[in-house]
């Protein structure tokens, strides 16, 4: 009670300093980035404010578009908030049972070897519900790309702890923070699959900053290039923000991601 709340946010400038942003500029200029994602159909998605998943969607769709795979790629999705991409992106999709995407993608790739086949799964889907599927797909050297969006919570079911929640992380089912004595330790899926000889490429990126996003896009591109070249199993983990599930303000999501997730799951090319 020592300070009086202000009615106006402190970041708000005097109105005379702002530039109009409601229409394209009328001076000679060139559009260097479009708001809608590559291959986007539909106007909007329903994911929460500050969610990192749509950023991962965007770079994934850019990679597919830039590699000219839009008409010959099939995505296999599990169950999670990210599954909303099937409504947003104009490529072919299959949705399968929780955690089973690598097994389904195996079948798709064996029937249609000329198509780029990838899975899009969350950490709840891949690490908690279907760890066996991704490990066996990697061990069989299936020529698919598995992508795990890791935010450490089951977002779409309300924010429960997953097998990849980091130590100390508060979730709906670990309100005092994940405690190794009670909940055990997080499963580093990327590190596990990198130990299997059938794996051609493993990388872990994040979407916490513009630089990390650009780097993660390069990882995704490399994975798809190697899949198309027939190199073997490829895997990219993407650390994303879930401020709703983490109980943090949206603007603090990238900071929390860096301090906790990136400390537990270091970014970089692993194999």
């Amino acid at each position: 009670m020592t300070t009086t709340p202000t009615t106006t946010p402190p970041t708000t400038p005097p109105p005379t300093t702002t530039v109009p942003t409601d229409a394209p500029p009328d001076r000679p200029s060139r559009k260097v980035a479009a708001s809608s994602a590559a291959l986007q159909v539909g106007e909007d998605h329903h994911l929460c404010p500050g969610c990192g998943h749509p950023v991962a969607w965007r770079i994934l769709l850019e990679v597919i578009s830039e590699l000219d795979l839009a008409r010959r790629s099939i995505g296999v999705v599990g169950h999670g908030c990210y599954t909303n991409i099937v409504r947003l992106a104009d490529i072919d999709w299959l949705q399968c049972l929780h955690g089973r995407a690598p097994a389904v993608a195996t079948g798709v790739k064996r029937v249609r070897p000329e198509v780029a086949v990838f899975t899009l799964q969350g950490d709840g889907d891949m690490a908690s519900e279907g760890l066996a599927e991704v490990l066996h797909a990697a061990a069989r050297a299936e020529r698919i790309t598995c992508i795990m969006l890791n935010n450490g919570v089951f977002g779409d079911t309300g924010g429960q702890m997953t097998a990849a929640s980091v130590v100390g992380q508060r979730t709906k089912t670990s309100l005092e923070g994940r405690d190794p004595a009670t909940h055990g330790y997080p499963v580093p899926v990327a590190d596990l699959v990198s130990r299997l000889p059938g794996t051609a490429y493993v990388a872990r990126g994040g979407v916490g900053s513009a630089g990390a996003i650009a780097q993660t896009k390069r990882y995704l591109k490399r994975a798809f290039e190697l899949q198309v070249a027939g190199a073997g199993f490829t895997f990219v983990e993407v650390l994303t923000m879930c401020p709703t599930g983490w109980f943090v303000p949206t603007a603090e999501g990238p900071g929390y991601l860096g301090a906790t997730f990136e400390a537990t799951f270091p970014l970089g090319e692993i194999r």
Partner: protein
Amino acid sequence: MSSTVTRSTVTRGTVVIDRDRCKGCELCIPACPPSVLVMSAERNSRGYRFPLLLDGCTACQACHAVCPDFVFDVYRFDEPIIGSAGRGPAADQPEDPA
């Protein structure tokens, strides 16, 4: 760091903000290298505050990269604006013959 109308600024580009698509997460504010995005006090049709642009945009596309709600179009000017950017040629700039 604070932006004022008297600040001498080079503006190399601008953004178009789809304010009604914005969910007010504020990720673009710290992501902007020249710190020319600030949040509005006004709220959009969904009840969220949204970003406003100040002079000095470099068209670097960092806001576009970090935005989860696909709000930003980014434009790079053929010629930078010295001084206040506003929309169109600045008052102290000659008309671009091109």
